[in-house]
């Protein structure tokens, strides 16, 4: 099987599983909804204030929610020793990683698309800058979260209490990406500055860590 065929097979399998069970997306959606409601209660911001803080709130909510999906990525494959089977098969490791990362990317993007209207309603948001820029920012930011998240989830498989280990690893390493997403979003919402630098930073983060993940994933998968 070619690289592309393995990626597609794994990806369609994961999407079909998710479509039938809806485990990850339900948990993520409800979790993000709770975060939105609690933040909205806790801060009760005016339209002006919420423009300044919304970037932070949105991405923190998505980051927390994404951990739910990321934790399920590999745990699902452990149940029937699927991962062991994959390890002994002659298939290369990287297509598996890419399929998992794309899968998480799709799940988190769906979550973002569903949650965005709620955010706009609860926080009375209206972008003062060029609103279309939020789309590339969201795409780059989501990839930044899921590419390292998928990788660290594979690493935390090898630990005790792996569900706790994933955020403990992912959050400190994601600080530059988070700063990028939050500040780019705030820049667009307030329209005060250009988001150009932050988009460039996100792009650099994505390129560096996608390369690093592809370089080291085989090592992590085969680590015995």
């Amino acid at each position, binding site marked *: 099987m070619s690289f592309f065929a393995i990626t597609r097979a794994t990806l369609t399998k994961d999407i079909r599983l998710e479509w039938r069970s809806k485990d990850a997306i339900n948990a993520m959606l409800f979790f993000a909804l709770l975060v939105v409601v609690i933040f909205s209660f806790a801060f009760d911001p005016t339209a002006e204030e919420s423009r300044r803080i919304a970037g932070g709130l949105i991405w923190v909510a998505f980051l927390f929610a994404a951990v739910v999906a990321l934790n399920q990525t590999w745990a699902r494959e452990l149940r029937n020793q699927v991962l062991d089977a994959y390890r002994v098969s002659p298939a290369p490791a990287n297509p598996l990683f890419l399929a998992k990362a794309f899968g998480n990317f799709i799940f988190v993007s769906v979550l973002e698309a569903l949650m965005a209207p709620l955010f706009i309603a609860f926080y009375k948001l209206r972008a003062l800058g060029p609103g279309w820029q939020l789309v590339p920012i969201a795409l780059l930011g989501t990839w930044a979260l899921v590419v390292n998240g998928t990788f660290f989830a594979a690493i935390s498989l090898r*630990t005790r209490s792996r569900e706790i280990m994933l955020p403990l690893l992912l959050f400190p*390493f994601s600080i530059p990406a988070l700063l990028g997403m939050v500040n780019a979003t705030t820049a667009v919402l307030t329209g005060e500055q250009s988001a150009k630098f932050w988009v460039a930073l996100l792009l650099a983060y994505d390129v560096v860590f996608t390369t690093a993940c592809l370089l080291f994933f085989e*090592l992590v998968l085969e680590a015995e």
Partner: protein
Amino acid sequence: MKRGFPILAIVTALLLSFALYEALIVAPTEQTMGNVQRIFYYHVPSAWTAFLLFAINFVASILYLIKRSEKADILALVSAEVGVVFCTVVLITGPIWARPVWGIWWTWDLRLTLTLVLWLIYVSYLLLRRFSTGGKTPVIAAVVAIFGALDVPLVYFSIWFFRTQHPSPVIGGGGSLDPRMAHVLLINWAAFLCLAWLLCWTRYELEVAERRVEESHAMESLMEGSQ
């Protein structure tokens, strides 16, 4: 090798006492800050030592992935551990100095934030090593250490831009250092480097001993199982 250890211990003790004397008595009192400034002789050498140890951790991790030698893995572990200790000293002495001089305990300035993020990254690295099970720990730890090193320039640029956008109340750096102060600073750094070396060495030997004990336990239970 073993004979060098007490010698290093004595040299470290002497150097540390001499450095303390130099920092508290010999070094001139700073004009505007007064005696508070003397914490500088502990703060700066700790920071340099911590960054050096993190760099050693990075090199040792790469070495481990290339050569798969246990020594490189233990070196990576102990340099991260001792580095986190020195980094903690930096993060504690900093606010103690900042409170009387700047009037605030903490500010999200470039260097402060970078040091804090470094500390977070290496604490999470050590947590991973602690939580990790089985013989794969060295490999995944080495990979995470390399990820951490890749993260540092990105963190640097993100905070640099973040800060230049929102000027902080603090005007840091600049100015020249009195040569007598620089002299005391270097003596203190030498003392701290010896201390770091001593700590790493102790921790290294301890780690080797612990691994041997674990191995013999594993062998024992294997033998019992086969009987």
